[in-house]
């Protein structure tokens, strides 16, 4: 099994059909373990039980950014190598990434209310995640708006790459802007010295959510391939009737 084999959509379908159940099972198991570990995790001396939100908030936030990275790679595949599976991968990833971003926002807000006393703050990190969310939604709208998938793929690829350049700039500039106007009122635990009691469930959950992404992405890619087959069959039928 080489990468070239994977390039063939039919090959991809049959291969993933074998892999998918195992992946799904692994995801389920790891998620269960992670959930158990987080339930058992002790309260933080400062944050109390709300620290439990961290175990879902942080993986979602990480994935929100990771998925854009996956889409950027796919965009390169579309523009540079014209790889048909790259289009499929980019399109399938967008809604999943948007969902993770949404969850990072929601869990963050729900954590912010007890911690900072407000659901929303125009803080640097929060704002850049919101922008990320908007960009996901824009990209999904773009995919939806154009019937012809190859045409949409190229436009989406250009936009994804420009967005990939832009996001760090936003993040960086927003940081800068916040320190300029007022000191960040953000209380962070800092990724530095996290107690093992929190670190282990967090990492388990992070791995579990990553697996969840891989599984969902693969399944969504399969759907997308099928959708394109349906489309080309429909087109061909129209052509046959014409002839």
């Amino acid at each position, binding site marked *: 099994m080489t990468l070239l084999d994977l390039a063939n959509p039919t090959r991809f379908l049959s291969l993933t059909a074998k892999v998918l159940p195992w992946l799904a099972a692994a995801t389920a198991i790891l998620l269960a373990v992670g959930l158990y570990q987080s339930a058992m995790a002790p309260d933080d001396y400062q944050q109390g039980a709300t620290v439990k939100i961290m175990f879902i908030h942080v993986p979602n936030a990480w994935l929100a950014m990771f998925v854009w990275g996956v889409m950027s790679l796919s965009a390169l595949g579309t523009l540079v190598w014209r790889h048909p599976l790259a289009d499929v991968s980019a399109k399938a990833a967008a809604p999943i990434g948007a969902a993770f971003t949404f969850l990072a926002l929601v869990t963050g807000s729900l954590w912010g209310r007890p911690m900072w006393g407000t659901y929303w703050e125009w803080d640097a990190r929060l704002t850049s995640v919101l922008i990320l969310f908007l960009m996901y939604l824009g990209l999904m709208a773009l995919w939806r708006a154009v019937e012809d998938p190859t045409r949409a793929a190229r436009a989406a690829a250009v936009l994804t790459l420009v967005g990939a350049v832009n996001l760090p700039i936003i993040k960086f500039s927003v940081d800068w802007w916040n320190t300029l106007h007022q000191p960040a009122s953000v209380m962070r635990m800092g990724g530095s010295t996290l107690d093992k009691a929190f670190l282990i469930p967090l990492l388990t959950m992070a791995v579990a959510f990553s697996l969840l992404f891989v599984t969902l992405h693969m399944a969504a890619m399969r759907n997308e391939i099928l959708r394109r087959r349906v489309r080309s069959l429909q087109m061909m039928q129209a*052509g046959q009737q014409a*002839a």
Partner: protein
Amino acid sequence: MQPAAITESRNVMESAAFRLVGRALTCIRGGREIFADLGFSLSAGEALAVTGRNGAGKTSLLRLIGGLLKPAAGTIVLEGSPDESPPAEQAHYLGHRDALKPALSVAENLRFWHAFLGGERDSPPAALAAVGLDHIAHLPAGYLSAGQKRRLSMARLVAVRRPLWLLDEPTSALDTAGQALFATLMTDHLAKGGLIVAATHAPLGIATRELRIGGAA
């Protein structure tokens, strides 16, 4: 802006034995295959009339040659081109849309394309006279009738010299005199060693070879 005519004595078209060759072309648009495995070849001084039913893919073929569409398979080359440039850069494309800005005058429109397209050129006023529009050079292009717009597009072919003409139903909207005029222009162009590919439903008034595209609609 572009003052006078640039009339070099050297003429690209005469100096090179051009041949436009398309091989095994397949065109897919909007997910539907328009035509497959189409081939043609055309030497300097020849005109090819592309015919076929509505929706057969005549316009699509012209756009493939002009590089405005990418073929799903196959190649198009202009053999004998001195500088290896793609056919698009050696070609004039006269499509359904006239590439005119209604707010600019007739003369301004032509002068723009004259300056923008570059290469060997004749003077714009002479070109306007050649298509019979010199008396309305100052009118905004938005005021022109359908046939007058077509004539203004034709003026572009005269003002800027390109060896390959891609013409999409060039005589539509032209009156009888206009069609005769256009036939003369094409004959001249061919005599100078030019090539013409024209999609058409009506006779062009010149000797042509015919490429019939199957397909339906």
